[in-house]
Every structure is written in structure tokens, then in C-alpha cells.
């Protein structure tokens, strides 16, 4: 029983990592109605920028907003430079561009900062939350920040004009254009915001898993899984999905005999596919009506 609780708590902590990334996935989905495969690499790149600024001796409180701001601008520019010219290309061509971006960012990071692991200091201090706690100070802080970003994001989409415009632009570009929304600008804005959230996620995740160019390779997958499970249209769903993935994965690894340990990722993915087959829009998502 003790082990059971411990695994849940630890799954919750790992789930926090996935939830962070899932938020960034939801953000980009709201903007372009796609999953961006290069998102993890972009987030890692942002984290490297933060790491580099820290290494140059800038204070922590200055580095964080700077890294997030730079990431926002970077994401915005990537959309303008890379995607604007091929706006009308088919979906699969866009996916291939994501793959190309992935290769470019990954390779550039390896070239600039090499592939050895780098410790990133935490804003919340080292060590456990209290004596004997399974959650470290950092993990607690990470989950809190994720919740905070979640509330911000929810409020953004719910209450601001820009948020509403962005949703409209992604859901129905033609009608949105007719009511005077600058659809193309909204897309770029979405890229910027997704990159900024990715930067937050990267900076939060790096102290746990250590920074290196492949840091997000598998985390992005879990983030996708969490977001899809919870519903790509719902930030709250994505966060809950992230936590569920973390917990299910731990329990599967611990309690399913013989193959559990070896197949914990496939089992978690299998469960997600089962959920999707029953409820294709995700736990909290709304069904997007496809035009035919």
C-alpha cells in the first residue's frame, strides 16, 4: 500500500512534466490545428538560451523573463519566415517542415552546446519539500507554475479579445477573416505564445531530467499523449491528461507482472488509444466538426 501511494505521488510528479508540455501542445493546436513535432526541440532550445544566460552570469530573475521573451519572438519569427510562404501547401507538407525544423534545432543545439548533460538550477531550491517527502521542492514548484500557466491560458482564451480571435482564426479562417480578424497574424501570435510556454516548460523540466539536446524527445510524446487524452481544445483537459499519463505509466510499470516494467510506455499508449476509440475528442475536449 505504501508503495502504491508512493508510485501515485511519483507519477503525479512526472505527470507534472508532461502536463507542462501538454499546455504548450494545446496552445499550438489552438493556433494552427496541428501538432508541431519540433515543439520539444524549440522548448529545449529556449532552455539552452536560459542556461547560457545563466552561465554568462546573469541573475535568475532576469534570465527567466528574458528567455521567455526571446522564445516568444523566436516562435513568431519561425512562423513568419518558414510557414508564411507555404500557407497553402497541403497538411503533409507542413508536417514535413516540422520534421525539418526538428532536425535543424536538434543538430544546431548539439553543434553549439554539445550533447553532454548539463544541470540547470531550480528557482525553488534543492532537496525534498520536507524531510521524507517524495516530492522535491522543485517538483512542487513546477506543478504550481503549471497550474498558474493553466489559469492564465484559460483566462486568455475565455476573456480576452485576442484569445477569442485566435480561436476563431484557427477554427474557421474564412469566416474569421470576414469579421476582420487578421488570421495570419493570429497564427504567428499563436506560435509565439506556444514557444513562450514551451520555454517555461523547458526551464521547469530541465532541473529534473538534465539539459541536453535530446531532452524533450520522449517528453514531447508524453505531452502529446496527455494533451490528446485530455482533449486538444481544453487546457485543463491537457493538464489532467498529463497527470493521468504519468500515474498510469507508473502503476503499469510497477504492478503489471512480467511485462509491466518493460512495456510501461506501450501500455500507457495503448490505454490512451482505447480511451480515444471510445471518446475520440478526448476527456474534456469538444468535438471539432470537420468540413466535408
Amino acid at each position, binding site marked *: 500500500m505504501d508503495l502504491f501511494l508512493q508510485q501515485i505521488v511519483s507519477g503525479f510528479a512526472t505527470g507534472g512534466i508532461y502536463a507542462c508540455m501538454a499546455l504548450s501542445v494545446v496552445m499550438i493546436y489552438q493556433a494552427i490545428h*496541428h501538432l508541431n513535432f519540433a515543439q520539444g526541440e524549440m522548448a529545449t532550445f529556449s532552455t539552452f538560451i536560459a542556461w547560457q544566460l545563466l552561465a554568462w552570469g546573469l541573475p535568475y530573475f532576469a534570465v527567466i523573463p528574458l528567455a521567455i521573451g526571446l522564445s516568444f519572438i523566436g516562435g513568431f519569427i519561425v512562423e513568419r519566415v518558414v510557414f508564411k510562404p507555404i500557407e497553402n501547401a497541403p497538411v503533409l*507538407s507542413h508536417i514535413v517542415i516540422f520534421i525539418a525544423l*526538428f*532536425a535543424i534545432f536538434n543538430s544546431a543545439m548539439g553543434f553549439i552546446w554539445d550533447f553532454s548533460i548539463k544541470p540547470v538550477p531550480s528557482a525553488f531550491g534543492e532537496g525534498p519539500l520536507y524531510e521524507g517527502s517524495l516530492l522535491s521542492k522543485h517538483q512542487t514548484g513546477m506543478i504550481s507554475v503549471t497550474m498558474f500557466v493553466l489559469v492564465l491560458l484559460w483566462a486568455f482564451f475565455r476573456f480576452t479579445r485576442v484569445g477569442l480571435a485566435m480561436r476563431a482564426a484557427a477554427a474557421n479562417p474564412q469566416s474569421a477573416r470576414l469579421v476582420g480578424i487578421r488570421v495570419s497574424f493570429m497564427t504567428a501570435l499563436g506560435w509565439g505564445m506556444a514557444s513562450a510556454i514551451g520555454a517555461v516548460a523547458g526551464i521547469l523540466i530541465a532541473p529534473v531530467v538534465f539539459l541536453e539536446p535530446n531532452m524533450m524527445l520522449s517528453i514531447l510524446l508524453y505531452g502529446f499523449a496527455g494533451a490528446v487524452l485530455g482533449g486538444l481544445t481544453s487546457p485543463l483537459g491537457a493538464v489532467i491528461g498529463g497527470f493521468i499519463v504519468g500515474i498510469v505509466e507508473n502503476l503499469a510499470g510497477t504492478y503489471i507482472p512480467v511485462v509491466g516494467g518493460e512495456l510501461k510506455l506501450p501500455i500507457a499508449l495503448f490505454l490512451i488509444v482505447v480511451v480515444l476509440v471510445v471518446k475520440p475528442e478526448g476527456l474534456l475536449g469538444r468535438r471539432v466538426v470537420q468540413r466535408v
Partner: protein
Amino acid sequence: MATSETYAAGAASAPKPFITAERVVYLLLFIGLVALPFFSKGFFVFQMTKLLIYAIAIIGLNLLTGINGQFSLGHGAFYAVGAYTTAIMVEMMGVNYMLTLPVAGLICFVFGFLFGLPALRLDGIYLALATFALAIAMPQFLKLSTIEHLTGGVQGVIVFSETFDPEVPFGLPLDPGVWTYLFTLFVGVFLFWLARNIVASRTGRAMMAIRDNPIAARSMGVNIALYKTLAFGLSALFTGVAGALSAIAVKFVAPDSFTFALSIVLLVGLVVGGVGWLPGALIGAAFIVFVPNFAEEISKGLSGAVFGFFLILVIYLAPQGAGGLLRAGVGRVKRLLGGR
């Protein structure tokens, strides 16, 4: 069904003359490919074998994505199943490698068909995630310790461990590498012919109708569930045979050979070659075989970035892939000719 023919863009139009420009091009290409190994080094022949194998796998993916409109980021998994089928049959059961191809194809067909059933409920991004999950899970299944006696676990299986090379049949005086290439070429030509016929058949037209307008297709009485799962099965069959050929050419299979990067590479090949245009597979395969080497020559440290840059360049120049470029080119020529 008659009306659905209009969707099959010219696939079943009026009877053509026996000699067409297209047939001449294919014939020349075939002769060139047959002659190739007799004029080049062993290593290049091996690369070309790899190219043909990828091309077959891409044709498989094209049947699903290009013809039926379903996404897959997980075709590396079918490729792996085909490869392991051949490796296990050759090594553990002593079956002649040529006989393993139909078995590998059949197993992959069943596997693909079964996977297509739950996939019916998913589309777009959700299907992409489900297939992606399949690609991620496959290497882990392959090294599962409970089936290690078959798969060799993480160590993989060395194919032709006794003889080192696949046996050249009928006592032909050929180098085994050249034979492997020619064998792959013959299988490839057969599968290409098969794929074209499938696309031109009732089945193919039904698949395209579903791609273009599922609701209209349904109202015309097309059994959507059947044809979508069938497309998955057929697609897996082609890709599985490609995997089987890879086991023969590479002579080694291991979980690390079939990571999700393989699925991604196949998708890149599909898009570069042109979605929905079967011969594009050769161009796409050439891209994924040669461009990474080329990128490595330009810069070792930044080879990934160079590759990515080329990929973006290709999409800029040909957003619809080589197939789209060709269509546009042919269209322009026709317009020019028509204008006169």
C-alpha cells in the same frame, strides 16, 4: 458505383494505344535499373537496393495516405514485422528466403487490417497519434524478454548466419549483392504493377472516393469501414514485404533498426515523392537514401541542420512533392502545345 468513377481521376478512361510515352519511360527506367549493377561498385549496388526497398515501403504508405487519405506515422512498425518474419523464418526454421516474402506480406496484411479496425474511429491528429504510438511501441515489443528465444531480444537476429549471403538460385553466375539487388528490383516491379492495378480497380476507386468525400461515398453505397481497413491491410502488406527484403539485404535485424525515426523517414519520402503519385516513391526513396549522406559531406556536426534545410527547400520548390511538380510541368507543356 458508376458515378464514383469520376473521382478516379482518369484512371479508367478510354482505351489507350499500346505504346504510350509513359510506357516508354517505364521501359527505359527498367532497363537502366537492370543494367545498373553491372556498371557500378558493390557499395553503390547496396545503396540502390536500399533505395528500392524504401520505394516499396513508400508505395505501401502511399496506398494508405495518398489513395485512401488516412495518416500514418507508424509504418516503421509494419516494416519491422516483415523484417522479423523473414529473419525468424530463415534463421530458426530454415525456410528459403524467397518463400518468406509472401508470408511476411500476409502477416503484415492481417496485422494492418486488425490495426485498421480501431483506427476507424480515429482520424486526423488522433490517428496520427495512434500510429505514432505503434511505432514507438514496436521496438519495445521486439525486445520483450518473454519472446527473446524468437527475436533474439536486444541482440537481434543475424540472417544467413551459416552462409553469410543469400543463395543465388539456378546457379546463376552473379555476385550475391547483385542478385539481392535484382531480386529486390523484380519484387518491386511486381508490387508496383500490383499497386497500379489496385488503384485502377473498383477497390482503388472506392478508396479514393472515401478520401475525397466520405459522406458522398457512403451515400453511394461504399462500405467505408471495409475499404478503410482494407487500405490499412494492403498498405501494411507492401511495407511489410519491404521490411522482409531489408532483412535479406542488411542480413541483420534488431530493435534499434526500427525506431520511430524509420516511420518519419518513410513519411518524408512519401511527401517528397508526391502524395498520391505512385512512381514518386522512387524519387522520395532517393531523397531519403542520398540526401543524408550528402548533408554529412557538407558538415558533419550540422548534418541534421543541412538535411532539414534541404527538406524545407524541397517543400518550397515543390509543395506537392515531385508528383505535384511533374503534374504542373506536364500541364504547362500541354497548355503550350494546346496554345499553338
